[in-house]
């Protein structure tokens, strides 16, 4: 029911995604991330062994959870007011950093904990997913018709 037809282009547009862009971005990132994660875990296993792979998996889970928490918090606050958005962005940043610290300290005594793969995974997955997503978002903002979600139906029409 959330989909409406865009009369200019003649293909469905998700109105929910327009109202809550953060959720759309994070869903995209998780989808792309889930495709690359097995490869990254394999590389971690080959370089650092089982401990490294488990720590890398934990790092990826932390980053995914961080993105989801940020999106949910900002979406919720944006529905209330701009002041709530400011509050949620700043205090959400502090709370999420604190939660990340607690989450890492909590597993630091467990045998599989390996700080180097965990740290590398946190930075690489956060920046990698962001850069990957930014490529698509920049394209969508500059040329809405070329957005990834708009490409498939149009392409099939052009082939005819």
């Amino acid at each position: 029911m959330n989909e409406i037809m865009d009369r200019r282009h003649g293909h469905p547009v998700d109105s929910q995604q327009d109202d809550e862009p953060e959720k759309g971005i994070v869903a995209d990132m998780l989808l792309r991330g889930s495709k690359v994660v097995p490869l990254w875990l394999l590389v971690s296993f080959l370089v650092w062994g089982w401990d490294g792979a488990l720590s890398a998996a934990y790092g990826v889970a932390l980053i995914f959870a961080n993105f989801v928490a940020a999106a949910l918090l900002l979406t919720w606050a944006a529905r209330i007011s701009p002041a709530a958005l400011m509050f949620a962005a700043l205090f959400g940043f502090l709370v999420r950093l604190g939660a990340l610290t607690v989450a890492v300290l909590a597993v630091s005594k467990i045998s599989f904990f390996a700080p180097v793969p965990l740290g590398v995974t946190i930075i690489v997955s956060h920046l990698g997913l962001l850069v990957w997503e930014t490529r698509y978002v920049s394209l969508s903002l500059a040329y809405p018709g070329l957005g990834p979600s708009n490409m498939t139906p149009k392409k099939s029409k052009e082939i005819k």
Partner: protein
Amino acid sequence: MIDLLAAADEALDGLKAVGAGLGYGLAAIGPGVGIGLVVGNAITAMARQPESAGMVRTTMFLGIAFTEALALIGFVVFILLNFA
């Protein structure tokens, strides 16, 4: 002599932990200011042009996430100093 060396070693570990914590805290200040700027300007943009709120929020979210990466780098340095 051995006791003295052990005490110095312990003190060094403590100083390392304090340094890591201070570094993490300092590394979080810059991104905090950055996120404030990003969100403040995004709210201004949304107030001026409510019709472009979707685009502004998209850009704002990515800006926040990129700024947060700086704090995460500080966090990783904290992990490495404390546990590596």
